[in-house]
């Protein structure tokens, strides 16, 4: 991918008013929901810190907890597979499907499956794959990819969804919610009842019990794990908590940060295949633990990116995401976390430029329930790009010159003087009317002030040093060092 492609996608999104309106509406709902939910706690900041600590501990001891999880799943009668790459993960699932003679699959939401293009591979094997999460179902019908971690179809308007469903049903539909959900319910009910295999993602796996936790608002996670005879769960290797008790905190942080819900409508915790005497549940359960570049982040300055619990709060608050939606980022993960994960998973060489889609405002870091310093990481990705010489040579030359000049005050002052003189032909009424690239792109939409005839340091020398000011009769604590002064 080149920056040209990134810019093109961004321009395309900016020109799409329907998309921008849909994204703004959805993210506004999410973020105001979150803001309300957070207010219910006096100690939200302390909870963030605890959640961060739980994630940090887990990732620091990932080998231990993964081994514990695998042992527990096997003890519960399930099978465990480790996949180093996306291709391996796909191959494992294909083999499982072949082994059990699977004809159709009901899927609940899984971002990992989007990462590895699982659906396409299964279809090649002649297997029918149905997404059952409403958002995923919509984008499957539209032939698109998710544009948001928790709201895959939030870029779609109600009208667009009604059109898709109308095509499916072969009749015209009204755009009200009951009509649309009734279509989805009728279509999907059949899928649940006939699928041989369920495939799920994993919000959190619990190491001490060997359980998989799913949060959904439509109950599809529960259907997919209860009805088909085979269940396969795909989990990113970092999606794990040590104890059942840890779910209390992390599920709270997840649902409140995501949508503002105290809990999602359904929280499903399941621990393997049907046991003797149980009335439902699958005959066989397979857990596929996917690395797909995650282990390369361990021990690096980006390790905290693995703390992510996929709530999407950073997307909802991101002023860039809110303008362009998720697809412009170019891969499955979007928003600030996507701009960090995509280069890390797919290579800084090719994908480092996604980190430019940020104004570094830090809203993501402030919104993150596990306090990932995403703005710092975005700078880190930019640094990796620059160090590997993936940035434009002109840009490298500009910053080399910048550092050199700013190290030499005489040169800096000379540049100011030269600027005042050189700008003359290009200035009218105190504003630039022309500037060379890349500054020209500023001028297209904004005015730019010309350098005034005297800079601050000139004023300081010529008049300011001599000026005297009347004292105000306010009490100032000179020299007494106040605690809060030294803080922050």
């Amino acid at each position, binding site marked *: 991918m080149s920056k040209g492609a990134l810019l093109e996608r961004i321009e395309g999104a900016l020109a799409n008013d329907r998309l921008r309106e849909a994204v703004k509406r959805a993210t506004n709902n999410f973020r105001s929901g979150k803001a309300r939910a957070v207010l219910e706690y006096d100690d939200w900041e302390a909870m963030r810190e605890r959640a961060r600590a739980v994630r940090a501990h887990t990732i620091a001891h990932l080998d231990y907890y993964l081994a514990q999880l695998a042992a527990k799943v096997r003890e519960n009668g399930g099978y465990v597979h480790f996949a180093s790459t996306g291709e391996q993960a796909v191959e494992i699932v294909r083999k499982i499907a072949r082994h059990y003679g699977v004809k159709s699959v009901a899927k609940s939401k899984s971002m990992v499956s989007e990462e590895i293009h699982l659906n396409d591979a299964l279809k090649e094997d002649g297997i029918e794959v149905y997404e059952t999460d409403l958002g995923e179902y919509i984008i499957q019908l539209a032939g698109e990819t998710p544009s948001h971690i928790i709201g895959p179809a939030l870029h779609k308007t109600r009208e667009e969804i009604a059109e898709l469903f109308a095509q499916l049903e072969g009749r015209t539909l009204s755009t009200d919610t009951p009509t649309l959900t009734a279509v989805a319910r009728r279509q999907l009910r059949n899928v649940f009842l006939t699928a041989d295999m369920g495939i799920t993602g994993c919000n959190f796996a619990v190491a001490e019990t060997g359980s998989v936790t799913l949060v959904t608002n439509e109950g599809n996670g529960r259907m997919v794990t209860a009805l088909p005879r085979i269940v396969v769960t795909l989990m990113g290797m970092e999606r794990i908590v040590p104890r059942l008790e840890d779910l209390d905190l992390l599920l709270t942080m997840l649902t409140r940060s995501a949508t503002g819900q105290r809990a999602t409508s359904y929280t499903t915790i399941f621990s393997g295949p049907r046991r003797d005497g149980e009335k439902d549940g699958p005959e066989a359960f397979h857990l596929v633990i996917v690395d797909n570049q995650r282990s390369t982040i361990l021990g690096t300055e980006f390790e905290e990116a693995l703390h992510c619990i996929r709530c999407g709060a950073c997307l909802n608050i991101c002023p860039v995401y809110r303008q362009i939606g998720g697809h412009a980022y170019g891969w499955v993960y979007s928003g600030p976390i996507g701009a960090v994960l995509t280069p890390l998973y797919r290579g800084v060489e090719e994908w480092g430029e996604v980190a430019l889609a940020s104004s570094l*405002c830090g809203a993501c870091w402030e919104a993150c329930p596990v306090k990932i310093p995403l703005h710092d990481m975005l700078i880190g990705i930019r*640094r990796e790009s620059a*160090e590997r010489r993936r940035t434009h040579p002109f840009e490298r030359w500009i910053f080399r010159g910048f550092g050199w000049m700013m190290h030499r005050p005489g040169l800096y002052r000379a540049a100011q003087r030269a600027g005042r003189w050189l700008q003359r032909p290009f200035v009218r009424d105190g504003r630039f009317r022309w500037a060379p690239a890349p500054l020209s792109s500023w001028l297209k939409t904004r005015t730019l002030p010309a*350098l*005034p005839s005297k*800079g601050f340091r000139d004023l300081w020398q010529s008049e300011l*040093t001599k000026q005297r000011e*009347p004292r105000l009769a306010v009490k100032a604590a000179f020299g007494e060092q106040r605690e809060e002064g030294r803080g*922050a």
Partner: protein
Amino acid sequence: MRVSLFVTCIVDTLYPQVGVSAVRLLRRLGVDVDFPSEQTCCGQPAYNSGYAADARRAAQRLIQAFRDSQWVVGPSGSCVAMVRHLYPKLFQGHPMEREALELAEKTYELSQFIVDVLGVTDMGATFDGVATYHTSCHMTRGLGVKEAPLTLLRNVRGLRLVDLPFAEDCCGFGGTFAVKMASLSTAMADDKLDNVAKTQAQYLLGGDMACLMHLKGRMEKRGMPVNVMHWAELLELATRPDRVDARTLADGEVSAS
């Protein structure tokens, strides 16, 4: 008490009146001000673009310029956040690490210095008008200063400070982002300006001239008749002798050293 002004390169070059206002405000509070002329830029443009080594070259100069200063005060949340919170990282394991930490410790944003160090919240100022305030991201999130400039402005008699809807959203400046992603940056400015228009304020105030340059530049293109200024400029006007109550003037004057 003596303070060294960290004027920042953007104020030095494009907005000298902001530096002048900062000097006058500090003097009116009885503080002696000096200006170490070796200072250039904090290095943030290079740092944020991923050029740490080039940023360090600029930063070394700033550290040397303020080596002998006791207090360093600047009229920018962003540049001060760079020095306070990012220099320690930038110089980790570097021979100048100790000096970088020293500078980080003694550097303050202007309102932070007035409110938290001097303990002044009310300057006895008077100014008639309606204003709204743009909270720059690097001042609030980067530096952690949220209330200090607003505290000072709320205590200006006659000034009505209107809350800006979605105040915490970025204005879209973002340094090189404003140029590299110009249309995205402009779309963000437009959202911000739509909210500014809703306040019906006559003045848009802020504590970072870079954001204000971007917003004012967009306003001029859109033809929005709002005055854009640094909060220190307004406070300087509002504490001139002809505006403040005679009783709030003390004896004596303060000038440079």
